[in-house]
């Protein structure tokens, strides 16, 4: 497992864990499923942050 440390713009520590093999991947997936790590990837994973309650236009 590759471990990298960063400091966020608000000064907090952020630890990045990058899998090097399948076993690492399984470990991280379990941690993600348990909510122990942030493993979101795309912005579109969280539509509630963007929806404005309007249905999509049927126009185009």
């Amino acid at each position, binding site marked *: 497992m590759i471990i990298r440390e960063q400091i966020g*713009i608000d000064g907090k520590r952020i630890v990045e864990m*990058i899998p090097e093999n399948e076993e690492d991947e399984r470990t991280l997936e379990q941690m*993600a499923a348990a909510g122990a790590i*942030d493993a*979101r990837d*795309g*912005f579109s994973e969280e539509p509630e942050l963007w*929806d404005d309650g309007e249905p999509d236009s049927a126009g185009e």
Partner: protein
Amino acid sequence: MSAGEHARAVRQAERTERELKLLFARLGSKQHPRGRILTAYRVARRALRGDATDLGVLGQVLAELRMAVQETAYSSLSTAGQAGMAQARTITGIYGLPTPTQIYTPATEYDAWMAAYDAQAAQLRALAVAGDESAILGDDGRVGAMSPAPIIREGARWLTIAAAAGMSYGIDASLNRARAREEWQRQAVAAIDGRTTDCCLRVHGQTVGMKESFSLSGTPRFADKMKDSPFHYYCRTVWTLVRAEDAKDRLTQQMQEAASYELEQRALTGKPGAFGPASATSRRTGVQVARKRSASSKTSSAVPNGEHPDALLKSWVNGAHRKKSVLLKRAVKEELGVRGLVMNRNKYTHTAAEINASRASVRSMYDATQASLKGKKTITLYRGVKSEIRSPGVVESWTTDLKTARKFNGHDVMRMEIPVDRIFMYSGGPGWANGRYGEQFEYMVLPEAPQ
């Protein structure tokens, strides 16, 4: 203050523009020969053939034609006015302003449109008295005075006015109720596609005070300074509300860049419309380039069995957990050889053959992006982090806009100078099209450079 608010306000303007486009089509044109007014005129002209100078017959046909125009004018103007009001209601919601409750009735627009019809009908009666049927109905190759074109053109003009008036009416009512001390501006938003005029491309993204006029420089235009659209016949440009402090933000810059690009490409190629962006801000700059390249490259010749790049991107920007998005992540991992998590919360499965088939698409997406970024070394990007420990995805969303990143916060926000060889695709780059969440200034970033 939020780039997200601004982007959503622009999206609302785009919705009104789409509504106007549909309404214009409903009137009739070469592309829409079954439009209501065009059809009504066709029927009327046929009925008059041989009897156009008979005042009794003419009067009856004109009365029926008037009813058809009247009905279309009434329903279309109501729809346009409601579209403007709906835009105002949603935008006030976005900015937390009081919701306008009044109803806008486009009665003066209706009168003006019908006045154009009545003027034409008066001319036709005069020509009938003179006994000249060919002046009324024309001949082979000439349409005569009984032409639907001026009535449709006037109608399109009043539809845009009704939509703009509905929007202005709603926003004014809301701001008056709020007695807001904040500074607001109006921003012109053009519908950028193959039919956008030079005039509207040049005004796209321009911001002015609430009482000020837009400065127009392109063609065609009704005047050099106009407070509101339409700026010319068949104009779909509308305005949206923007906080004064956001008027010159990155989104505005992107809008103006997108319009400038369209103008440049038209000047270079002499082909208006061949380079139309998918939205107010995203350029299809690389699509043609990428497709031309893919047609001749070995990697992209394998695409037929895999997912097309457009389909993979569309899935990603609309739902990173969708099946095609997971396929994209798996193909990125295989083709680019990067380490990182393939998040797959819905446990979708793909065969090795499916993944391999999409590797060529992934390669063409990456190569087109890299070609467009040639000469740049790094890009400053942000990403919100929810907890102290995180695991980067095999491809993940970052943004140039700190406010967007903060939406995904919870713990802190990372700021990094990302080397361009880690950029897979980006908003405004080759082949990019925003998804249903609009402009997020997104960059799809790889956890490391491809192997």
